[in-house]
């Protein structure tokens, strides 16, 4: 199987997010970038599939701060090649990035009968929806998101998927390759790679840089403004020593008849 994993960096929301002076974008001086969480899972699922069924894993991402670390980490985990699409990509969202990825696929002549394209199901900044479905439309391939398991049957060249619905229900689906799949969670949690191994990879393997023509690639929707949620009935914050707040909580629980 020939697996392509599409990756994207996003702001780490554990850090404080500050709105920029234009009130339309985040202040980039404050941002720390990490690989989108579901992309991390897509990468893991790709490596798992390679280990089970053989083949190659190629990781691709548009340039962003901290991207090199993420790509070296992908190589250390078992990706065969890692591509950085150079350029300025912050004004593009899913429709534009999917166009960029589809051009990457075209230029590198990647599509084949056994090609499986994986990406994260949805990122925290996907204001215009999932990249996976845009790409599936652009390439004329079947697509499916919110997937938590992928099994491959080499004889029929089909994959079996589990897709999450709601209320704990899941649906089983089958489709033949080539296809584009949005991973929500890999079969196993993303593996941990020691820094030493990543440092070693930095010496022996290279991130390949590639340029993609941007003509005709749509910018994102215009955001009128960004703002922080205004809350009318925010939680009453209990303060004091651990013993004091614990006692207050116990009082609340007994007032409400919980204990």
């Amino acid at each position: 199987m020939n697996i392509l994993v599409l990756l994207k960096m996003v702001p780490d929301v554990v850090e404080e997010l500050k709105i920029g002076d234009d009130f339309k974008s985040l202040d980039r001086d404050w941002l720390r970038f990490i690989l989108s969480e579901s992309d991390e899972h897509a990468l893991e699922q790709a490596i798992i599939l390679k280990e089970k069924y053989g083949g190659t894993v190629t990781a691709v991402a548009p340039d962003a701060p901290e991207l090199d670390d993420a790509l070296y980490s992908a190589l250390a985990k078992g990706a065969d090649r890692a591509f950085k699409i150079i350029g300025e990509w912050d004004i593009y969202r899913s429709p534009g990035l999917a166009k960029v990825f589809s051009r990457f696929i075209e230029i590198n002549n990647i599509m084949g009968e056994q090609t499986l394209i994986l990406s994260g199901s949805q990122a925290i900044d996907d204001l215009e929806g999932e990249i996976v479905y845009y790409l599936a439309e652009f390439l004329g391939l079947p697509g499916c998101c919110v997937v938590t398991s992928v099994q491959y049957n080499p004889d029929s060249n089909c994959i079996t998927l589990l897709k999450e619905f709601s209320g704990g229900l899941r649906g089983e689906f089958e489709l033949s390759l080539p296809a584009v799949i949005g991973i929500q969670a890999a079969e196993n949690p993303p593996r941990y790679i020691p820094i030493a191994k990543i440092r070693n990879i930095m010496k022996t393997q290279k991130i390949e840089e590639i340029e993609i023509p941007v003509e005709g690639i749509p910018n994102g929707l215009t955001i009128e403004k960004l703002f922080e949620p205004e809350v009318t009935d925010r939680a009453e914050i209990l303060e004091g020593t651990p013993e004091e707040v614990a006692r207050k909580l116990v009082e609340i629980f007994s007032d409400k008849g919980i204990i």
Partner: protein
Amino acid sequence: MGNGIIIYIEHLRGIVSDISFEILGAARKIADDAKMTLYAVVAGKKVDALLPGLGKADKVITIEDDSLEMPTPRAIADILNAVGSAKGISLYMIGGTNISSGIGVILSVKQKIPLINLCKNIRYDDGAIIATNQLFGGKILSEVKIEDSKGIFCINPGSFKSEPGKSGTFPQTETFEFKSKESKLKFIKIIEPDLSDVDISKEEILVSVGRGIGSQDNISLAEDLVAVLGGAVSASRPVIDQGWLPLNRQVGKSGMIVKPKLYLALGISGAPEHVEGMKDSSLIVAINKDPAAPIFNFAHYGLCAEIEDIVPVLTDCIRNKKG
């Protein structure tokens, strides 16, 4: 303004999803404010049983076909595209659910109109439709404006009340002929959650752990608390994805919808996909070390603290109280 709004009525196993009523209510208001016609599209193998209660729409357009038992997003997008073209409408509202995921994107490619995802509010204002979106796990909101009534809005579940969308009257209906194309994506079966050890949706007390719990070992802090408080341990998605707790403990969009008497959230940030599953709990208490965590916008009481500092003390305190 355009000719109308088309909304998609999502259903699973013969039941109309709550999100469809949320959207019916919200779209009804926009249609009234903008003086537009509200169409609701119902597609399925059999649709009759789904129609009562959809009376808030001016007209329900029905499509029946055997191939629509578990339709692919592409099949539904094809239908919405055809209905929109027939009626001259390019304004749509769809549920931002796992089941409906993909419909909006595919429709946006077909119609060459923008998709506005993650909407928690949508209103009509002086000729424009304005949406508010939940970005970055609910920490930041954005506002997007559509002035030509061409766009697809995907609504996050739980954004609106469903009651205003419910109606006792049978809607006016119109059948729509549509032959869907053969799909490469084949539905095989539905898999039920394994509830043999616990059904968290039936528990009155949930101590729910998020990524902030830090490690699998620390889950015992929650288990010790449950041992004195009663109830069960539940979790947010990352805890399940790490394999620290089984799938049947997940609360949220993909997990279970819970409404316990007490929901105690330990180290959960309060992302929209999590809140969707627990926002109707009677009493929500959150312990989180980040004062800006969105969970404090939903909780009744909050403690801005480290889990490790509070939970063992709380467990002791309850144990003493109960004697």
